[in-house]
């Protein structure tokens, strides 16, 4: 069930009504039932997978919790008798036991994700390897189902397990409550990836109907639909056209595509997240923000602190940090210092962890070389800019006025926007050599006149569409800029007339200009005589 379907809107209306009509004590149960209904409607066969993740995580967390409780009781009871060393040894033993439980659960759940998501990719690569070495055999590529949102719910739930292991979260004692945390329907498809300690108390708490929450939530949902339907789904037509026949759309079209795809993915992803956060907000639940004006970033590092924030922080907390401070890495660090000197040696573990993290981030996005190369290029950009940092620093010191100016900031933002867009275009072509070739064509044949003399309409969008897209982008930019200091909804809250005018206009715009329904492709609606 897509957010942009009539069924989903009806489903949402029913869930919201039940949520506030039924006794507050049952609110979490309403959400659980709704989440499982949502999941079942998307594919009943998927339920087994999310159930396995829920059950194994529940069991593992409870076991770890029991080990910790036992440890606490033992130390409290006999703490006096033990020496410091004995205590340490006892704690280490218990920690090892918890670590074992954690590893088993992680292996199982990431294993499911890996098998379902990456087997086909792995087999294809093994086949091409075999061919390279002249082997005749070809393994059949299996076609496995990929349960909806598996990457998101697996990550969110594994984060919970690691938190329990680190004693940052208590093991949940009610399996149904954990099931809700794993499956909370607004964020099931595309995140944000929430932390147990943030989300769980809100999910299981009672929320009374508050006009402000519901108003804010509905406004945000509407805003999300505007971005998704009016802008993203319209731009998508051109992006698909350019991606499907790259041979016709080289040079300046690639440049245009980079911009269009940036607009499309921004409007689609942030719009979807707006809908998700808006739904939760209407229920009195505050989810973590996933975006913070990403296209205003002046550097790649800043961009990744502003774009898909919850995924970035997940990888930071659960991959980058543990990897970079694990014992083998510290050992490498010590050795590299000895061999390369302090200055270089210091960086090796950091960069190694960066590369590993980005490799996994790329892989998480999808099973394909384009995603892996995408991740590694991000790592490369981050490392290079880190290396250039002293240079920048000197530049800033020499020209402080220039660097503080508005123009320089705009330049840095546009540079980051284009760089990220360029790397992101790997995602459009889904083919690494082709993408590189298309990048090359930007410089070899920049056929701007062709574009201006009508070639732009070859991408399947008419003049009206481009006008709508440009207006939509201006509105997005305006709303985002206005919201920098104080959110637009706060500004509107005590001005009901203005608020209704704007929301009404937005609603009519979604109905009228949204790229939805069979009707969208107007050329379909040409009758022939019958």
């Amino acid at each position, binding site marked *: 069930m897509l957010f942009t379907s009539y069924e989903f809107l009806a489903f949402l209306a029913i869930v919201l009504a039940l949520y506030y009509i039924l006794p507050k004590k049952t609110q979490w149960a309403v959400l659980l039932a709704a989440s499982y209904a949502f999941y079942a409607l998307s594919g009943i066969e998927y339920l087994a997978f999310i159930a396995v993740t829920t059950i194994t995580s529940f069991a593992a967390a409870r076991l770890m919790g029991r080990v910790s409780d036992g440890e606490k009781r033992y130390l409290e009871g006999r703490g006096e008798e033990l020496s410091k060393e004995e205590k340490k040894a006892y704690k280490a033993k218990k920690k090892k036991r918890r670590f074992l439980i954690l590893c088993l659960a992680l292996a199982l759940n990431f294993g499911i994700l890996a098998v379902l998501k990456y087997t086909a990719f792995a087999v294809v690569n093994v086949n091409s390897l075999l061919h390279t070495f002249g082997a005749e055999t070809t393994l059949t590529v299996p076609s496995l189902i990929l349960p909806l949102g598996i990457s998101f719910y697996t990550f969110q739930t594994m984060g919970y397990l690691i938190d329990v292991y680190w004693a940052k979260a208590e093991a949940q004692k009610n399996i149904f409550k954990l099931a809700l945390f794993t499956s909370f329907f607004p964020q099931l498809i595309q995140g944000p990836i929430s932390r147990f300690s943030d989300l769980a108390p809100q999910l299981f708490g009672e929320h009374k109907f508050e006009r402000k929450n519901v108003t804010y939530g509905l406004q945000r949902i509407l805003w999300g639909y505007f971005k998704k339907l009016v802008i993203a789904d319209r731009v998508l037509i051109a992006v698909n056209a350019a991606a499907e026949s790259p041979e016709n759309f080289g040079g300046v079209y690639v440049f245009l595509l980079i911009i269009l795809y940036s607009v499309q993915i921004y409007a689609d992803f942030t719009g979807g997240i707006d809908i998700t956060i808006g739904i939760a907000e209407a229920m009195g639940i505050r989810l973590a923000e996933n975006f913070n004006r990403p296209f205003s970033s002046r550097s790649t590092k800043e961009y990744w602190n502003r774009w898909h924030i919850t995924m970035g922080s997940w990888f930071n907390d659960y991959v980058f940090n543990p990897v970079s401070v694990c014992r083998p890495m510290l050992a490498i660090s010590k050795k590299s210092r000895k061999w390369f000197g302090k200055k270089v040696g210091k960086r090796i573990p950091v960069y190694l962890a960066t590369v590993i993290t980005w490799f996994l981030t790329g892989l998480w996005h999808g099973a394909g070389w384009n995603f892996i190369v995408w991740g590694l290029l991000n790592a490369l950009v981050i490392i290079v800019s880190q290396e250039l940092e002293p240079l920048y620093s000197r530049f800033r010191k020499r020209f402080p006025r220039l660097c503080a100016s508005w123009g320089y900031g705009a330049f840095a933002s546009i540079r980051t926007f284009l760089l990220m867009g360029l790397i992101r275009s790997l995602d459009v072509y889904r083919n690494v050599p082709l993408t590189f070739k298309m990048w090359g064509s930007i410089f070899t044949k920049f056929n701007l006149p062709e574009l201006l003399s009508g070639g732009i309409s070859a991408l399947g969008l008419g003049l009206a569409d481009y006008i709508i897209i440009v207006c939509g982008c201006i509105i997005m930019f305006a709303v985002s800029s206005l919201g920098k200091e104080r959110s637009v909804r706060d500004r509107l809250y005590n001005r*009901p007339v203005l608020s209704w*005018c704007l929301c*009404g206009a937005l609603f009519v715009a979604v109905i009228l200009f949204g790229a939805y*329904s069979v*009707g*969208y492709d107007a050329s*379909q*609606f040409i*009758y022939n*005589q019958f």
Partner: protein
Amino acid sequence: MKKRILITLAAILVICLLLAFLQTLVIPKYADDKTKEGSLVSEYYAEAGGHDVLFVGDCEIYESFVPAVLWEKYGISSYVRGSPQQLVWQSYYLLEEMLEYETPNAVVFNVFSLKYGEPQSEPYNRMTLDGMRWSSSKIDAINASMTDEESFIEYVFPILRFHSRITQLTSQDFKYAFGSPKVSHSGYLMQTGVDPQTDFSKGRTELDYEISDNAWKYLDMMRALCEENGIELILVKAPTNTMKYWWHDEYEEQISEYAEENRLSYYNFIPLAGEIGIDWSTDTYDKGAHLNVYGAEKLTEYFGRILSEDFGIEDRRTDASLSEAWDVRLESYYKERNG
């Protein structure tokens, strides 16, 4: 608080009115020569009631039978409720709806559409269904007709379906926002052009000639509905037969057999074209796919004799009020026919 509620209600009202107005703009007007057929179904309500014969079916029905001629020659009051690619379940529900307004002596159904057992095309669905007024028949018709990509709510609020026309509005959309001009003569859509049929080759073989259970189901329902209301159900096949819309012998066998089993009258006019006097060089406007007005008049005259002689449909020209209504219709008919 009170003020806030008032503002909310006023705002919702304004938004609804605005959307309603926009909806009237974007709904296709079906007024130009290419899409006129879309207006046919809605034109019935202006003439509903008092008919002796009702016709239902696809284009072969609304391009072949001329109610004006039936009245002028035989005093038979009739209406043609055809629409492009009208599928059998749509014919059924249109008939069911009409029976709420009147009970005729006979119903004539053109059998060509029986070859389709499943929903076919979204645009044609809209042309047939959008013109119906809301009733349980319309709801059932929509549910029976929707293709996978369609949603019921888009029939309730057509703006959801047609909104993208907002960037392609023409002067017609404003001119006819609150009502389109009449396009038919009691459901007959007049074509005065002549484009002779020169190609008489047979249609290509099809994969499957079996008329589906779903199509039979609705024909059965139509038969039962007529029986209940004491109406004679007459099956016909228009005389046109071109390569593209070929009436295969296999279809003919199945229909004949069905008619025989259920004691229905069935007239296949294809082999009778010569006897009727149809000349394929002058009586078609599109190379033989459909009759033009000259061909339709000949066929109607022929069929009118069957209706009055074999089925005993009475001459009602002595009915003063009916005559008055038909005089107006005849006048407009001849005005268009003779330019």
